[in-house]
């Protein structure tokens, strides 16, 4: 009975985890938006800095745009043009 209960709890916890990972592709934790509509996300164990537009699907959390500023989990739209 006890084993069955543990398995049941584990299954429910797993279901929740699966749902969360589907929502954030298992990786992303969004941080607050900035004016340009981009925001920085952490990745992996919360220590990668990447940027994405707020309305991109979280599954695209590694699509880095337009850039991150070190340390502050802050994104910038500054973009020097090389033409």
């Amino acid at each position: 009975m006890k084993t069955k209960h543990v398995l049941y709890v584990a299954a429910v916890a797993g279901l929740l985890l699966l749902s969360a990972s589907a929502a954030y592709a298992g990786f992303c934790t969004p941080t607050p938006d900035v004016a340009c509509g981009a925001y920085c996300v952490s990745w992996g164990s919360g220590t990668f800095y990447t940027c994405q537009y707020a309305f991109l699907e979280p599954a695209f959390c590694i699509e880095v745009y337009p850039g991150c500023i070190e340390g502050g989990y802050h994104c910038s739209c500054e973009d020097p043009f090389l033409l």
Partner: protein
Amino acid sequence: MLFRVLCWAYLAAFVLPSAALPEKASEIIDPSTGNIDGKKALGIWASGTIGGDVELFGSAGFSVHLVPHDDLDRELVFPYGEWFSPPAGGYQVLVEGPNLVSPTAMTIRYGASPFAGQGMAIVHLAVPAGKVRVRTDNLPANTVARVMHLESHRQQHPEYQRNMLVRRASLAAIGEGVLMPTGRLIVVLYDQISEEYVATSQPVHVEEGKTVLAEPFSPAADKSGLLAVVKRPSPVPRKQDDDAEVRWMDSADRSVAPDLLIRSSSRLVAVWYGLSGSGRVVADSPTIARQEMGVGLVPGKVHRLDLYP
């Protein structure tokens, strides 16, 4: 019994793999090791998949390229997947690999600040690439190239666009070939002494693992080239929202569409290969304020106009 079997099957199929995903990244890098001489170090990796499972590339054949914001003609090369510490400042970041390159440049600001527990670890993208080259035998030594991709910034997502990829290259580098994402691009030649554009190529198509020749040409003696760069008032990342148009209005108020119009999130670039006379560039749309700028074209020259909101 059946319940127990189902639970184990569920755990094996979903819970354990999904729980293991976050650890997969930390196996590749331990951010707590990003400490160089007491400073927070920078480490850059690249992923090869879009929208699917996350896969980071290994380091074989890869390098990191940083363009300093205070010297856009330079491209500093650093090892991929290792900690390093460039001078503090802003950079455009690209990753190069074997027939792979980032589809857009990523902007970072690196502070070289005191180490406080973790380095600055970044994951960029890399997509299939080939090279573009130009015949440089008859070009003056002060010529450099600006290679602009026409579509890589719009191909990573069906609905969204980023900023276009432009790489600067020395005469030697463009003679050897510059790595660019597959797809269409143009090469513009620039004279560093006169600080003028001198030639523009027609679009060429880069194929994976191959080198394509671009042939920039100067305008005919009675014509002028024109590059118009329109900065948007605010980014337009969603392609379907991008309704801006750019046109040349000649002195008789006749409208001439550009030969190329490259759309991106923050800018539009319009290219005309053979205009003449005087007129103005007009950029407008139902959703942005109209911008325009006049110019008297000089025959035989390639002009550049920058329009800002």
